[in-house]
Every structure is written in structure tokens, then in C-alpha cells.
């Protein structure tokens, strides 16, 4: 536990003593902000149009669901941005140690591999939590000017957290394989993207295989979280995905 903390602290410090953390968090929020603006203004326009139509036909205006129409797309976008950003966060965790030779210090210290991996995983995870925490601001604004349901938002964030940790675990794995950060980032990226898109093939191939494939897909499992459904099946999927990444 002491070793885990030591490594966790060192990694976190190294994120924050270099520009990495600030750039990643900052740009992630910029990107999220732009898409948030687009989605919300789209939603507002739609509401106005519905209101106008209701007035024309002298009906009660139809109630629009802000959770369904705005927050869910936002969550989906966030999971996509995480796909772009997290490989960049994880790429240096081990490749940099290999390149500079500090891996020799780590491997000849009384620290088990498991402690080192978990320390690094937790550090990258903490950075991701901060990235997500930044997006709470957007959600707070929705609460100020609308009345969304809290439940789906919380499950959505839980889903985001799990999907992000899955990315990180595989990013960490690819980082151990190579000295080059770029190779680590690109292979993580491709690997995640394949798992992301694997569900799309399911429509083309036979139903059983398709079902199997879509079960492997990262994003299919996320849908339910964003809808507000908390299914243990999905949680188990992400946890096993994370565990597999770390174990490798």
C-alpha cells in the first residue's frame, strides 16, 4: 500500500508539474464546451419550434425531455472525446520509464509489478476524474435553467468513468510494450476504436455472432448507462475489461 501510494503520488505530481495535465484537462473542457453549446442551442431551438407549433394549433405544448434530448448526446460526446484524449495520457506511463532507464530503478526496488501498475493506473484515473469533474459545470447550468432528472446523470457519469478506466487500462498495457510513446498511443487508439466499432458489424453477420460481437463492444454497454439504466451486466463487462487490460 505504501509503495502504491508512493508511485501514485509521483505519477500525479509528474502530470501536474508538466503542462500535460493542464493541457489535457483544459482542451478536453474546451472541446466538451463547444459540443455542449451546439447540443443545447439545438435543443432550445427545438423547444421553441415545438412551442410555436403548439400555439398555432392551440394545444398544450408537448413536454421535451432534457435528459433524453440533451444530456444523453453530451454523455456520448464525452465518451468519444475520452477516446481521443486518454491514449495520450497513458502513453507515457511505461514507455517513458523504458526510454529514460528509470524502469531499472523501479524493477530493482522492492516494489511488486502489481503495486507499480496500480499506482500508475490510479494516477491516470485521477486525472480522468478531474476531466469529468470539469464537465459538471455544464450539467449545473442545465439544472439552473431546466429540470432534468438526477438519476440518469449519475449513472451516465458512472458509465463514463468505467469506459474511461477501460481505455486507461489498455493504454497502460500498450505503454508497457514499447519504448516509443507514439506507438503506444496509436496502438491504444486503434485497439479501442476497434472495440468501439465492433458492434456495428453485428448487423451484417449472423445473429448469434452479431450478438456476441455487440456484447464485446465498448459503446453498446454505455448506452444503457446514458439512458439511466443501471445493469450489473454492463458493470461486470467494464470491470472485466479493465482487469484484463491491467492483467496483461
Amino acid at each position, binding site marked *: 500500500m*505504501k*509503495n502504491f501510494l*508512493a*508511485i501514485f*503520488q*509521483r505519477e500525479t*505530481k*509528474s502530470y501536474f*508539474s*508538466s503542462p500535460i495535465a493542464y493541457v489535457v484537462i483544459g482542451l478536453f473542457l474546451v472541446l466538451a464546451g463547444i459540443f455542449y453549446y451546439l447540443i443545447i442551442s439545438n435543443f432550445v431551438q427545438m423547444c421553441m419550434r415545438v412551442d410555436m407549433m403548439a400555439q398555432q394549433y392551440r394545444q398544450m405544448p408537448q413536454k421535451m425531455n432534457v435528459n433524453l434530448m440533451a444530456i444523453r448526446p453530451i454523455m456520448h460526446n464525452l465518451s468519444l472525446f475520452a477516446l481521443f484524449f486518454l491514449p495520450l495520457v497513458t502513453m507515457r506511463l511505461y514507455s517513458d520509464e523504458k526510454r*529514460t*532507464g*528509470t*524502469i*531499472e*530503478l*523501479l*524493477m*530493482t*526496488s*522492492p*516494489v*511488486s509489478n502489481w503495486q507499480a501498475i496500480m499506482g500508475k493506473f490510479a494516477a491516470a484515473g485521477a486525472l480522468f476524474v478531474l476531466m469529468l469533474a470539469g464537465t459538471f459545470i455544464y450539467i449545473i447550468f442545465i439544472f439552473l435553467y431546466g429540470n432534468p432528472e438526477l438519476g440518469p446523470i449519475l449513472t451516465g457519469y458512472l458509465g463514463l468513468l468505467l469506459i474511461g478506466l477501460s481505455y486507461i487500462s489498455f493504454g497502460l498495457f500498450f505503454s508497457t510494450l514499447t519504448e516509443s510513446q507514439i506507438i503506444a498511443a496509436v496502438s491504444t487508439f486503434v485497439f479501442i476504436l476497434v472495440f468501439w466499432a465492433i458492434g456495428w458489424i453485428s448487423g451484417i453477420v449472423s445473429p448469434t455472432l452479431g450478438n456476441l460481437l455487440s456484447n464485446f463492444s465498448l459503446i453498446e454497454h454505455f448506452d444503457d448507462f446514458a439512458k439511466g439504466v443501471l445493469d450489473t451486466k454492463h458493470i461486470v463487462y467494464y470491470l472485466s475489461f479493465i482487469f484484463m487490460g491491467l492483467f496483461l
Partner: protein
Amino acid sequence: MIDVQQVSRYFGDIAAVKDVSFQVEKGEIVGFLGPNAAGKTTTMRILTTYLPASSGTAKVAGFDVHEESMQVRKRIGYLPENPPLYQDMRVCDYLDFVAKIKGVDPNDRKKAVQEAMGKVAIDNVSKRVIRHLSKGYKQRVGIAQALVHNPDVLILDEPTIGLDPNQIIEVRELIKSLAGNHTIILSTHTLPEVSMTCERVIIINKGKVVAKDTTEGLTQKHSGARRLTVVVDAPLEDVRKKISALEGVEKVEKAGNGAEYTTLFVDSSKSLDIRPQLAKLIVAQNWPLYEIKAEDVSLEDVFLQLTTNEEGEAS
């Protein structure tokens, strides 16, 4: 303290280290000498548990490097060829981190870091970021890193590489001062380093140990004969004939050309010191004498002899 038994390590088909065995006693400084790619680093990496051996056993402080690697790791300080420094950390933070993962008690940690910095004289840069330090300072931080948890065994891979001559001397002094409390293995391919710092030397070539002995023993064993340089002012042929007639003299040869006086190399058998006889002869002949000097066979000669012989056998 260190016991290596027939350790081999293969990379594919190539044997980086083959059947290496040696022992190191507590408090000794042992030099690991060999040309580049001789297997020095590989042997050290096996000792530090970084690489597993393909066969054979190695024990450090009584613990097997493979079976009880965590116990071994607690007791060694290792300086790899490139000091393992986190470039973006400050010196004191870095050493504090190393102390943490090496299992130094939290209450003693501050003191341990201070002491390590004191030993290698880097207190004045403790707040600097490692990236901005000079090569010499980085190397010292590397040594401090190996020392911080006060390990029983220090393993230093080419500790003086890339330093300027003054720094090299400082580092050697430092290493010498550490002997006694620590058992030290250091590797190098520069010979003066071994003769200056080490009590014993292990010469390794092409993955095999070709010699292990004290530095004096090694030079003596491999010098077949004693050699004297004699400079006198007398006709060459005359001198040569008279000296050759002395008991124990094996060979007399002229050394160099164009010297003002006659300069000769006189080889004699190892057991006999002919210097008194030679002096008597010269006085009796009334030759003006300028120099009699005993030549040491240098470690360099031994090294060349051993490593080139080996090459001859292999081909």
C-alpha cells in the same frame, strides 16, 4: 555476501553470459573489467534481479535473486549505466521518492535523504530540477539514489563514464570511502579505475570469466619475468655481453634508438632479483650509470593478454 554459481544468460542463441561463477566477501570492492559487450551489464542486471538468469543460481546476502527477489532488492543499491533519473523532479523529491519505494522508514526518510546528498556533495543543488543539472551532478544524484537506503551491497555500472577528469577522481574517492560498510561491485572498461579503486578484479570477456584475483596478484601472475631498464654510458656490445653473463639473466635487448646513452631492457627469471649483482658489475666496470629501473607489468598488459588470447582460442 555475493555468491554466483555458473550463471548463464542467453538472448536467443547468443550467450551474453556463460557459466560465470564468483564470490564477493563483505566489505570488498570488486572491479568488473572487460571490453564492451563482454557481459558486465548483463551479469549486474542478473544480480539486481532486473533480468532472470537462464541457468545457474546467484545469491545476494544469502537470498536467491530469483526466489527471494524482494529480499534482495531491499539490500542492494543499483546504479545502471544511465542513471535512472526522473528528469522533471527536483533532486530532493526524487531521492525522497526512491527512499519511499526502497522501504526506508518514514521517520528516518528525511535524514536518509540528507545523508545521501551529503555523501556525494549535492546538497547545494537539492532544490534544482534534475533536467537542468550537469552530467557530473546527474551522475552523483544517481549514486545518491543507490545509497539512500544504506544498502549492504552497491552495484555500480560504469560509475565514472562521461565525467571530466576531476569528477572521475572525486567519484573514485567517494567509492573508496564507502568500502567497509558496503560491499561494492563496479564495472568499467577503463583499467586505471580498477587499479585505483578495487581490491580485487574479475576480468570478463565474451561472457566468460577469464581471470579473478587481487590486482597485484594478477599482474604478478601474468608477468613471466622481471624486467629492468638500465641506462649506462658505455659501448653497447660490451655492456650486452657482460650483463648477459650474469646469473639469472634471460634476455638483454636494446631499447630505443638514438638515445645519448646505451639503454637496455634486461629480463631475468621471476624468482631472482639481479639488481644487486648488476649494480656490482657496473661499478666494477666503472661504467657511468644513469638509471636502473624495475618495470611493472601493468594491468593493461594483463588485460590485453587475457582478452586477446581468448579471441585467438575462439576463432
